[in-house]
């Protein structure tokens, strides 16, 4: 046993507590901070380097998407949803189109469904690549950023060839797709799959057994499965805690029920497991792409939907598995050409709420790692 340290000479009871005074400190992080992935402001309450509590201040990117939705027709609102989660614009569009289709009681034809699935899975890979690059950069590994963005470029090229846009694609329309797959679309996707699998190994070579990476991520920001469910956390964060739940399997939409893939899960629910889960998810996406591209049926790409979309009176909630979690739309129709109410249930917004639980008791440097691992996009948090 070590001797208790004699602190008598410090005179801790004196009024002048400037020497070794340990009071709590409130530190402001952001909104202009490189590791907050946009404009997130976190107010940290610290005891030395230890985090005692956090408060997120959000809304800097609030554009009132839901209000805009009420003032646009169903068709006009479609491109707006791409601007929420702008690194996974295709998924946003898919969720919106499917919800309106549900309201109209139509279903996209099989060919359109396959094209949609291929586009969304490519988008999932692209979104995870942005996550990997920026998350690794936050922790101090610079190389993965260049690798990930280099490989993402090929996906954006496919998007550009398909619909002319790279980021905010507006690829789908209510009722199916507006663009037919271009000549060589299948070959491009197949080529990407064979190109990307070795690249994925390259990422893993850089990080999975890297000692610095492992030390910075293992045991950081642990989220227990019951906390995940109570906090409504979804997506890879939930799966990394060991809950095998993916909307593509639980409530399949589009043609996912015909495709064979697995749901990767983690065990510890820490930052390292979330990294592994997302890497494994990219592999599964490649698997889906390889199957889907072989099976694209021929046929129409648009269902029979009226020119002016006027869904009957009613309301519907529909959600899809976006790269970041459950992306839901709740649309109320009053029978007119404009939605009466559009509610977006954004995965980033709800997941960000878990930040406080994850960083309490950790160090300041871990806050940066945890913000990265939550994979939030502030455009979607603030809408």
């Amino acid at each position, binding site marked *: 046993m070590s001797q208790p340290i004699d602190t008598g000479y410090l005179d801790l009871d004196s009024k002048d507590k400037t020497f070794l005074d340990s009071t709590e400190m409130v530190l402001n992080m952001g909104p202009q901070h490189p590791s907050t992935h946009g404009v997130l402001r976190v107010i940290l309450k610290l005891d030395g380097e230890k985090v005692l509590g956090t408060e997120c201040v959000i809304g800097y990117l*609030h554009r009132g998407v839901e*209000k805009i939705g009420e003032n646009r027709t169903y068709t006009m609102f479609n491109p707006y949803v791409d601007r929420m989660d702008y690194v996974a614009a295709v998924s946003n569009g898919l969720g919106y189109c499917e919800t309106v289709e549900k309201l109209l009681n139509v279903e996209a034809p099989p060919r359109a469904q396959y094209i949609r699935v291929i586009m969304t899975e490519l988008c999932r890979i692209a979104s995870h690549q942005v996550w990997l690059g920026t998350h690794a950069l936050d922790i101090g590994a610079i190389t993965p950023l260049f690798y990930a963005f280099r490989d993402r470029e090929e996906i954006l090229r496919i998007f550009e060839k398909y619909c002319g846009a790279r980021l905010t694609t507006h690829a789908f329309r209510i009722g199916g797709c507006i663009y037919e797959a271009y000549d060589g679309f299948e070959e491009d996707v197949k080529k990407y799959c064979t190109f990307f699998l070795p690249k994925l190994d390259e990422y893993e070579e850089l990080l999975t057994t890297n000692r610095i990476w492992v030390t910075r991520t293992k045991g950081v920001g642990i989220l227990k499965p019951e906390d995940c*469910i109570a906090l*409504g956390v979804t997506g890879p964060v939930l799966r990394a805690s060991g809950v095998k739940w993916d909307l593509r399997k639980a409530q399949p939409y589009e043609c996912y029920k015909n495709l064979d893939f697995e749901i990767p899960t983690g065990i510890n629910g820490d930052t390292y497991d979330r990294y592994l889960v997302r890497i494994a998810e990219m592999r599964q996406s490649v698997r889906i792409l390889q199957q889907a591209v072989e099976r694209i049926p021929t046929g129409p790409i648009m269902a029979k939907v009226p020119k002016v979309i006027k869904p009957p009176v009613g*309301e519907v*909630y529909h959600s899809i598995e976006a790269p970041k979690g459950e992306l839901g739309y709740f649309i109320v129709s009053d029978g007119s050409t404009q939605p009466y109410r559009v509610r977006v249930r954004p995965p980033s917004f*709800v997941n960000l*709420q878990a930040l406080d639980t994850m960083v309490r008791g950790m160090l300041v440097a871990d806050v940066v790692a945890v913000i990265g691992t939550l994979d939030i996009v502030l455009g979607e948090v603030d809408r």
Partner: protein
Amino acid sequence: MKPATPAAHKPPAAPPKPEGPKPEPWESELVTALKQQYGSGILEASRYLGQPYLIVDSSILLEILRRMRHEEGFDYCVDITAVHYPKREQQFDIVYVLYSFPKNERIRVKARIKDGEHVPSAYPIWPTANWLEREVFDMFGIVFDGHPGLKRILLPEDWHGHPLRKDYDILQQDKEWVHINLGIESGQ
């Protein structure tokens, strides 16, 4: 001057559109049990396009939510939102989207409330309600009793007005706030 078109030349009225699907009664053990216990507190139990929903009286809302969580297994609160119907006496619909992991089922619980009426917070039942309720408060001005820190979340704290109410125009804004904080006459 434009000649007035005689009424006889009006195009014939379009044939009435076929009506959309109607909500159908939702029958299940859960609904029977709830109706037995709460009687007229359960105002409606229907399915629309295969999606079940309950409309309950706002006085038993918290009790129903608690029961959903602890007895019926709806462990995941997906979303809390509201819809404004200014012409109704009970102006707001407050909507809870719930999901059950063990059952893989999704339901919606709705309650109608008057303007200014308080709603009990669902935070003690699902911690995720914290931010979701703050957003509803921010956008609609609905106050949740028992919420740990009910304040605006997306808009600045000193903003006036609740933008998702139907009487709030899309171009409307808190001019005073914009003037003081941004130093410009208008944000438009």
